[in-house]
């Protein structure tokens, strides 16, 4: 793969930013600073970053309830993200959206979605807008293993295939939808195999291996930009935390702690870092420097979020209509 070292470093930085962002957020949650629930991306960083490293600013994504990782991967501003989680006026949505509805249209982030599977048709539509305009922008749709069983999956992917839309469907199969294991909700092993129902490529990759994710996406993006239509990529991954917040009450009841520990051994950041060190792309000192820099940024983000004003109550009445 001919990826420049700078890109690799940027990918690493983004992964670590996501990880630390989520950790900071959980700290703040424990301190009671967050007015709403959060779904963390910890453990799944290779997916969002591996995918988005292939995208340009004008390319678009639709995200999910577990969206922080996608947003950072697509270039989102951690300050405005954190402020949004705090419900502050300076947040991405002026405090109207919270964790589940962060968007940045200027970066092609068409928004996180509280409805599982809700972004599948809108992603097709975003790609349709590109096709109609004749630009070569692509749209990526992230969705979970649970979402793979929503009717929207079927309708949207079929539509995208028929119209050869420049969209890439990325299934983040983290093996569970809340407490429901994928085998209780997906009637076959690989969501990727469902691509065959629409005559489009479907590929399953190791979602802990960022280069595998990157390469599969590169191929799909090439197809999409060339007008050859959609692809389906399934990334096998794992969420290290509970469904919501940090550790959840149901932890242990639906998955064993052995299973969790087993997966944590394949921490995507640890794996990528080792590779980069081995390849000489990063030195240990670089790693420390990046970590420090991220932490400083996140210190700023938390401070910014804390110090930002809450919205005025009456602000609730704004932003309904254009």
């Amino acid at each position, binding site marked *: 793969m001919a990826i420049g070292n700078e890109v690799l470093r940027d990918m690493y930085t983004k992964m670590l930013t996501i990880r630390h962002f989520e950790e900071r957020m959980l700290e703040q949650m424990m301190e009671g600073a967050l007015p709403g629930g959060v779904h963390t991306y910890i453990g799944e960083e290779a997916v969002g970053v591996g995918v988005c490293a292939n995208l340009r600013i004008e390319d*678009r994504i*639709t995200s999910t309830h577990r969206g922080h990782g996608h947003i950072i991967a697509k270039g989102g501003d951690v300050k405005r993200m954190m402020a949004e989680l705090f419900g502050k006026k300076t*947040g*991405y*949505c*002026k*405090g*109207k*959206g919270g964790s589940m*509805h962060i*968007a*940045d*249209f200027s970066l092609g982030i*068409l*928004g996180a*979605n*509280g*409805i599982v599977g*809700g972004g*599948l*048709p*809108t*992603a*097709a*539509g*975003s*790609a*349709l*807008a*590109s096709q*109609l*305009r004749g630009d070569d922008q692509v*749209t990526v749709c992230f969705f979970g293993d649970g979402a793979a069983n929503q*009717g*929207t999956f*079927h*309708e*949207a992917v*079929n*539509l995208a295939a*028929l119209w050869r839309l420049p969209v890439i469907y990325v299934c983040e199969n983290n093996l569970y939808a809340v407490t429901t294991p994928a085998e209780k909700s997906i009637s076959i092993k690989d969501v990727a195999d469902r691509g065959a129902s629409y005559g489009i490529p479907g590929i399953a990759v190791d979602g802990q291996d960022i280069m595998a994710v990157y390469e599969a996406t590169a191929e799909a993006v090439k197809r999409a930009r060339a007008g050859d239509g959609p692809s389906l990529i399934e990334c096998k991954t794992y969420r290290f935390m509970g469904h919501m917040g940090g550790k959840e009450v149901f932890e242990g009841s639906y998955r064993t702690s052995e299973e969790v520990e087993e997966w944590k051994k394949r921490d995507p950041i640890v794996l990528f870092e080792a590779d980069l060190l081995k390849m000489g792309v990063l030195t240990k000192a670089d790693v420390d420097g990046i970590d420090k820099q991220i932490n400083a940024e996140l210190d700023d983000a938390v401070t910014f979020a804390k110090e930002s004003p809450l919205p005025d109550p009456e602000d609730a009445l*704004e*932003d*309904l*209509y*254009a």
Partner: protein
Amino acid sequence: MREIRFNRAIMEAMQEEMRRDETVFIMGEDVEAGIMGKTFGMIDEFGPERIRDTPLAEVGFVGAAVGAAAAGARPIVELMFWMLSYVAMDQIANQAAKMRYMFGGQAKLPLVIRGSAATGAAAQHSDSVHSIFMHIPGLKIVAPSTPYDAKGLLKTAIRDDNPVLYFEASNLSALRGPVPEEEYTLPFGVADIKREGTDVTVVAISRMVHNALAAAEALAEDGISVEVVDPRTLVPMDAEAIRSSVKKTGRLVVADEAQPTCGATAEIMALVVEDEDTFDCLDAPIQRVARKPVPVPFSPPMERFMTPHTEDIKAAIRKVMG
């Protein structure tokens, strides 16, 4: 002035707006063949990209329209019948209606969804659903009664940067009425006094405007002077016009082809009785004229019985006249 049919007015509005703005396009089932009559032949001028047949997948293509709008296109979705909104409900009620607001004003969603309701087609094809959508903030709702209003309001809808739901009443499609050759648009939120009167106000929606006018005509012979108010858009609703009329007449009948319970009729009654000045002018109980509270049955005697007609409006007027 020339007279054209209701359906023709709708088609003209779409044609003119599609010529004016090349990002406007139509999508829906069998729009190319134009089986609902409103897109018939448009394929010749605009081609299959802009008169776009969809697969039979309402949540998919309505969602695609939402996404296309978010990404800069201006889709007009044709639903064969409005009951199909049930199939696509999440994309309308929880995606399109909420996106701009929950993203803190970032999204612009220039999207029109239009369709009609069937008659003689029994329960599942016949729901008049505008009241349901009035309950959901973030949508604009149009219910025209004449070819003139239909054209002017649809052009406004297509130029609007928000999701607009456009309701074409059953039985109106062949109605003829004057429509100027010259271009015009009509504003949202401005009721039209379809007939002036002094004794009783009838607020009538869409098709019921014609029944109200017929009732007014008939009762004029008995010396009852009926004012017929057509709100034209239900969101925004011109409460002021309605209240002014009631303040003048002191009596109100509200007529809508839809179900009464939690319907537009109930809403208009509420708008009147919650306003102190208007309430003080009210000389009689308000009567609503709507469907009887059952699904639409197939057989004509039963369908006729449960559907509101001119006689029902006359009876209601007589009742409030005491």
